């Protein structure tokens, strides 16, 4: 099966199952190779990358919660150039499209990123992460700048601001939306006694985001695909999001707790999704539109 996950127009991004890992959960390359069959996934979404290198957060970064976890990694990464050179070969071998998650900082830096990324065929699309405290104008500028890229642009909206941001971001040039980034929260480190603020993962995020997806799906243009993320821990969780109008889903921390669950969900929906084709491919979709490298690479795969 082939599912289009970006809006009709200049670009296309086809996945064979509407299930992929969320940014920040599976690394930059194939770190889960021993535990996951990547071929079964719809796409690889990399860990967040910044133009400049970032060091990890200091001190505690992980706090186990009841049925969840709070993580504040600080998004350690060696910077875009290094991430590309280190992982390019692995990406080329990936049987699925590679979506690079780029941390949105400044339009100036974004310009440099766009130039670099356009040179890298192994990158099928970019997912732009918008920070939680971003204001509407900065967000629009960032997305407009990123949209100059010759690849599909997916924008990941912060949990608390997604209502305000969804439409403007779409108009600024995003080809799809990820709803949403994990909500930020604060928890006490039981060992150091310190408060740590970071992202909150767990099954209870799902009913919150399912409502959000259901409402936003009815508010934004049908042609703009929504990729749902947040609290998916079972195939049924994923199906609920598709029922709510998402074309695909991202599984986050469940993969850490139970790696096989990501693959199970992907296999399960890989079959189930047949009935969703209509939603997955909006009517305006034009079959002979230009295709991304991902598409061409898929063509070379033994068909599954």
């Amino acid at each position: 099966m082939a599912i289009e996950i970006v809006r009709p127009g200049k670009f296309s991004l086809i996945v064979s199952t509407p299930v992929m890992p969320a940014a920040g959960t599976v690394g930059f390359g194939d770190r889960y190779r021993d535990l996951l069959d990547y071929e079964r996934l719809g796409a690889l979404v990399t860990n967040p990358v910044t133009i400049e290198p970032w060091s990890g957060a200091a001190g505690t970064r992980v706090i186990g919660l009841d049925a969840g976890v709070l993580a504040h990694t600080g998004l350690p990464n060696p910077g875009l150039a290094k991430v590309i050179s280190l992982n390019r070969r692995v990406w080329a071998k990936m049987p699925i499209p590679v979506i690079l998650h780029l941390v949105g900082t400044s339009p100036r830096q974004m310009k440099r990123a766009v130039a670099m990324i356009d040179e890298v065929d192994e990158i099928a699309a970019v997912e732009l992460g918008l920070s939680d405290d971003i204001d509407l104008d900065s967000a629009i500028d960032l997305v407009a700048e990123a949209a100059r890229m010759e690849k599909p642009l997916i924008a990941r909206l912060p949990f608390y601001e997604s209502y305000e941001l969804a439409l403007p971001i779409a108009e600024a040039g995003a080809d799809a939306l990820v709803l949403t980034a994990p909500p930020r929260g604060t928890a006490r480190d039981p060992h150091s006694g310190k408060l740590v603020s970071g992202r909150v993962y767990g099954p209870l995020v799902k009913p919150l985001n399912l409502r959000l997806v259901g409402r936003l799906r009815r508010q934004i243009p049908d042609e703009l695909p929504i990729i749902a993320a947040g609290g998916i821990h079972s195939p049924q969780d994923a199906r609920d999001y598709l029922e709510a109008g998402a074309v695909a889903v991202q599984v986050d921390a469940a993969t850490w707790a139970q790696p096989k669950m990501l693959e199970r969900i992907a296999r399960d929906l890989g079959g189930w999704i047949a009935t969703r084709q209509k939603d997955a491919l909006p009517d305006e979709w034009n079959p002979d539109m230009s295709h991304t490298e991902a598409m061409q690479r898929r063509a070379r795969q033994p068909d599954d």
Partner: protein
Amino acid sequence: MKESQAYIERVKRVNRSHQRLELAVDQSLTALRAGQALLARPMNKDYEAEQWDPYLRELWFPVEVQARNIVVVERPARAHYLPGQLLSLIGPVGQPFRFRQKLRNILLIAYDTAPAALLLMLPPLLAKQVSVTLVLMGSARQYETSHLPEEVEVFQADDSLAWPDMVMTLGWADQVFVLVGQGDEMGSFAAVMRLMRERHSELPTNYVFGVLQRELPCGVGACHACVLNLRRAQKLQCLDGPAFDLTDLRLN
């Protein structure tokens, strides 16, 4: 590194504070060596009924690998385990400890933590006539050691981290492994390093190792929650650890 299933075959109390779980594990895990760990979580045969509290996998350092695919771990007595419980295990996680070729005397330090992560090395080392000293610091002093091999010489450090014969032990030791509890790991390492530096003006490499047991969300180098800053590089506890040369680790 793979995911496999295991059963809790037996649960037995070993001292006031701890219990041991005998796990019937996959053959592949019996090759596991001192320093390597397992990421464990209870699981349910029906995966749609998977339970998510507790959420993160627990980092279990085996203390014994027996015949018949039995791996033994030591857990706090508070925690509630029942025989027959099905487990999902990811492992082996991390690198085996690297011992000196001609290791004769080894010093093990457990600081604010039970020494479980240091116990799997005991049988092989003792078999090789290596003399083992175990020093318990901070809250580790509440740990009862009567169930450990009697050849192991055990000391309790005082509040200034000193212990009887400290000078001698430090002088004799060919290698030192410092296991610290979760929380301010770097601070604990720094405290122990001060002891060391009082003895050795210039600390050699491959001499004193810090052993970490932070929570590991993924255990495969994907989530980057276990990044450590070394002098020249960043490393991951889950892939490169749990032991790091303390002369190489950035302690501040």
